[in-house]
């Protein structure tokens, strides 16, 4: 797993949100382009498949059995 190179800048964004300069390279005309949207849809699906393990671990945390509910909590130190 590649460590996030920009972790410090992400941290900074949490406490001090950046004021982004306007960028013309991302206008919104493409939002109405069906072909481009289809390409993005494929990219999204690829992201989800690639990250399947992340979803599986999340799902497993929600799977509880009867044994979980029977755990006795009684620490008496």
């Amino acid at each position, binding site marked *: *797993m*590649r*460590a*996030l190179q*920009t*972790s*410090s*800048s*992400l*941290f900074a*964004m*949490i*406490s*001090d*949100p*950046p*004021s*982004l*300069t*306007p*960028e*013309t*390279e*991302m*206008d*919104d005309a*493409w*939002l109405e382009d069906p072909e*481009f949207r289809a*390409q*993005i849809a494929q*990219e*999204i699906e*690829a*992201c*989800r498949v*690639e*990250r399947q*393990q*992340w*979803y599986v*671990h*999340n*799902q*497993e*945390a*929600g*799977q*509880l059995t009867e044994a*979980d*509910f*029977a*755990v*006795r*909590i*009684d*620490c*008496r*130190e």
Partner: protein
Amino acid sequence: MGNTLLYAFDASTDLEKLLELAKPAFHPGDPFRQLNYIRSYVATLGGKSMALELECIDRHHVEDHSVYYSKSLRSYSNTCRRLHFFNLAETELKVAMETVLEKAQAGAALYRAACEQFSSEHYLGFSVIKPMHGAPVGRTVLRAKEGKHSHFPGLLPTRVHLKGLELTVSGIPFQQQDYGVSACATTAIWASLHYLRGSENLRSPTPVQITRLATQSQLPNGRAIPSEGLSLEQMCSSMQSLGIAPCLVAAKERYVSLAVIHAALRSRMVPILVMQRNGVHHAVAVTGSRISPALELVPKFGIAEDASSLEGLHLHDDRRGPYLLAPVDHTKSALILQIHGVDESNQVFEEWTVTHILIPTYPKIHLSFLELRVIGGMASDALRAMVAKRLGKPRDDVTALLAIQFLRGPVYVESLIHGPYRLANQSQLDRFLDHVVLPRYVGVVSLTTELTGRIDLLLDSTETQHNSRCLAVVSHSSGGLRGAVAAKFLHQELRANHLSVPAEDSPLTT
């Protein structure tokens, strides 16, 4: 002798002696461990003096007394003593208290203001001392040591009265288990439910109420009182009986567990951890977190969660004391906390493996933390894919920082009005207030990338993941077209009700 005595205080003050406590003959451990922890903790807060109230009524003890202690042959008193701690020397404290009373005589508003100011500057909190030598520490509310890296979102103000002054301390209540009406499970629930007192105006239940509700329909572990401990099912039952939804998660993977715990803390809740060591299960309340900027945010397939930078959790451990820092072992796949051994020196840790996370939740929050995290993951994928495709970057080069939380609707709206994530201008705020109807609690998914700034997705918490509804997409980027375009994309992709972007006259505005 009056009802209140003042004493000098420091780390060497012998509270056992001062309170004339004596260990019961057959007590198996150290009944004053928690009292001594409190002494050390208050010393680190800068405590220099204390006031001892010789007689006070504590609702939580009175109810325990009426159900349990009144049945004993020994005549336990229904009154307690109470220690108050201050960061002023004894002589300065006397003068300061007199000064507050003098100022306060000018009217009710001045009285409150003077008491508030005195409390915020000098009051460190209180500890009720129950009339039981085997478990003397009752309801204790002390200041938390907040700092740049330690956060305690669930703190609530508690008001008490001393010599005519109304004293306020923000904290989370702690008490030691008494082996009679409450074991660790009851005590952890008792501390955890405290947060609902603030957000839902609920009267916090007493330990004996919790134990009774937990044991009213099932007794898998034997008698209810003296407490033989509770099962997880009983813990859930007691919450359900109080009208609170028990949100239970199995702690199988460290990073999922930390994400859930951090989300609950961020939501100003107090999650309960069930932990296991040598076959024994123990319950503690999580009161805060400590973040380490030195820990790298390691993304999992393009998503980074700030929970992975948690250095430790602050716990109320009824075996030890309040706000105890338990470091997280980041080398293991399970969530393992290192807790100072109660019978060891501070350098020796016990390792406890967290097995379950139990979060008392307002019942109308139908969406679970895990579901909100999945929604966050799916939205992150969409945002990353869009940014990567649009800018022609490889997917791996685009990382989204994901943070989830449940917030009361008005609390979220307030964050749009002031603070670091306030909306860019009045017109954006007006449009949001005019068009967005929020439920009592809103699920907030915050996605941040370096290219788009922060974008919030507001989820209707009264729905589930399978019937989810995105109420609004909010771009916080001030003047950034990238953030606005990305927000518009997510607005379309998630079929959200409202789009909130900074530019009033921009064609992006809907």
